[in-house]
């Protein structure tokens, strides 16, 4: 028996619904249809009256979740694709994110965002919006990269008394499997050493963790041992674990799938450069997607985002320094 990343997301919602009567699910086509990706498959049968098909109204979906949270509920909102959260943006960054700070009323909502690129999905079904939300005070942004984290971090997100943007990567939905969900992982806010190493550190998150791991394997053949840090949550970002890794290796490559201006990789480098400058034996590097919308055709898409090959090439340059 094995369980996929997507199934882990379903199971976590199952658990949350089972254990906490305040939890409910709201999103387009998540009821009897089970969601565009089947992340809520059968949940509306198993928990009648707690899984709702919403109108195509992302702004109102988030607003209603905030209102429900004020009344003590713990709603999980599913965006059909992260990209569509752009029309719910205001309710997320101005309504949900400011509620506690303004009024001392906690806002325990979880917004699930199917994120990231897959071949043939194009500019509006492939976006990674974690940096957009992380810029705003009052939100927690998680980016699970493993089946275990998909499960435990979703449960943790639901338990947190603040709005959580849960970025689940669509590329991992079906491909990524584990034998079982496994025991509880690290808490949100702590990064994970996905692979220990001595010569350089890659700091990354979400689907890029797996590309980074494969690039690290490739470099192993050349005799280099590369450490891979999986951030797990990009806000809060676990600066201590990053710095400790750079202290061991002296070299840093930050890898992300999002657009290149600003974002997670810039934040990683800014932290290490400011707080761990003396740890660096070489200039820190970063690798992102290109500065264009995400292309539809697989030929282009594969070249738009970082790949094993471009990560490995960047590592080689970093190690040569």
């Amino acid at each position: 028996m094995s369980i996929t990343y997507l199934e882990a997301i379903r199971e976590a919602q199952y658990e949350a619904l089972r254990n906490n009567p305040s939890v409910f699910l709201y999103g387009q086509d998540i009821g009897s249809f089970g969601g565009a990706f089947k992340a809520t498959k059968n949940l509306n049968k198993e928990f009648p009256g707690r899984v709702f098909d919403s109108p195509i109204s992302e702004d109102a979906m988030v607003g209603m979740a905030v209102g429900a949270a004020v009344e003590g509920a713990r709603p999980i909102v599913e965006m059909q694709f992260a990209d569509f959260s752009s029309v719910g943006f205001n309710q997320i960054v101005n309504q949900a994110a400011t509620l506690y700070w303004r009024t001392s009323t906690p806002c325990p909502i979880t917004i699930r965002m199917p994120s990231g690129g897959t071949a043939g999905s194009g500019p509006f079904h492939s976006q990674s919006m974690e940096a957009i939300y992380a810029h705003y005070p009052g939100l927690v942004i998680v980016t699970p990269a493993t089946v275990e984290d998909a499960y435990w971090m979703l449960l943790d997100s639901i338990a947190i008394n603040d709005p959580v943007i849960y970025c689940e990567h669509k590329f991992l939905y079906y491909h990524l499997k584990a034998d079982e969900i496994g025991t509880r992982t690290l808490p949100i806010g702590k990064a994970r050493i996905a692979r220990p190493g001595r010569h350089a550190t890659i700091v990354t998150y979400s689907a890029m963790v797996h590309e980074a791991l494969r690039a690290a394997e490739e470099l192993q053949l050349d005799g280099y041992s590369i450490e891979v840090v999986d951030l797990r949550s990009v806000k809060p970002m676990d600066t201590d674990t990053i710095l400790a890794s750079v202290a061991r290796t002296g070299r840093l490559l930050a890898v992300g799938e999002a657009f290149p201006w600003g974002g997670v990789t810039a934040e990683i480098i800014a932290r290490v450069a400011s707080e761990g400058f003396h740890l660096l034996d070489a200039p820190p590097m970063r690798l992102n997607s290109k500065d264009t919308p995400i292309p539809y055709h697989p030929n282009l898409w594969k070249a738009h985002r970082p790949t094993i090959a471009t990560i490995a090439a960047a590592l080689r340059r970093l190690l040569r320094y």
Partner: protein
Amino acid sequence: MLLSRVLEEKLGSLYRAGGRIVGGVYLGKGQEAFSAALGIQLRKGRDIYGPLIRDQAGRIAFGESLLDAVRTYLGAVTGPMRGRDGNIHRGRPKEGLMAMISHLGSLVSVVAGGLFARRLAGTLHDSVGATSIGDGGTSTGAFHEGLNMAAVEKLPLVISVANNQYAYSTPNCRQYACVDLVDRAKGYGVQGVAVDATDLGQCLEAFDAAVKRARNGEGPQMVVGHLLRLSGHGEHDDASYIPETARKGPSSVDCLPAAERRIIDEGWMNENELKDLFTEARGKVDQAVAKVSKEATPDPFKEKWQALSSEELAEGHHEA
């Protein structure tokens, strides 16, 4: 609505005097009847109320304290917003009084969400939610999505549309093209009525009926009130863009003296009793202002600079 007028006049004069009020002042002059008529239908502790810019009268009717209002306007740290947010943005969500953000329309779905959660939890009983919007606010996508969602969920939401003919300086003709905003109700599958909002009697009747229908499970209700904004958009604005024709038009009646006349004509009170009420209101307001004036304003060194409620997830400021 009388206390509201007295309070707002005080706030306006404090604003003009300068120095005491922090930020802007946004008044509901002329809208007291419409606003209060909804507020008094609501039961604090049981119903949810999401007031907007010009709902001082509705707030008082709902049961918000004078002190909450004055403390917020004067930026006292003792107020519900502790100096973090101001004026009309105040609220106490846990007590059913929502604290609006500036983005118009975005409170509709929030109030709907509160009702939705109660129904789910089995605690809805006969409670209702109410929120306001202006003629301008009806042009927002948030208003549309929120009201449509409330209608789909058949929630006991009462939406009061105060059509005061202007959105800041923008007249209705640049805001919508239907004959009357109440024409929108049918398109949402919502019951709608329009009233002359300068007439307290009509307002009371309309909201009484609408709130009853909502409580009875008849779904969202829309009440459109026709009136004129009798103040500037804020106290910084002299509203010179409102032409004489509108200033003298049928909607320009001030609801407050009109209500007073009615009260006297009907013999419910005499002039002296009314005067006493005013004196009493002035006393309350002056007392509140005097009290709050002595209270502390926020201290940045005591302020907890943290947006999250979860201590363990708060990041440092990453200051240089």
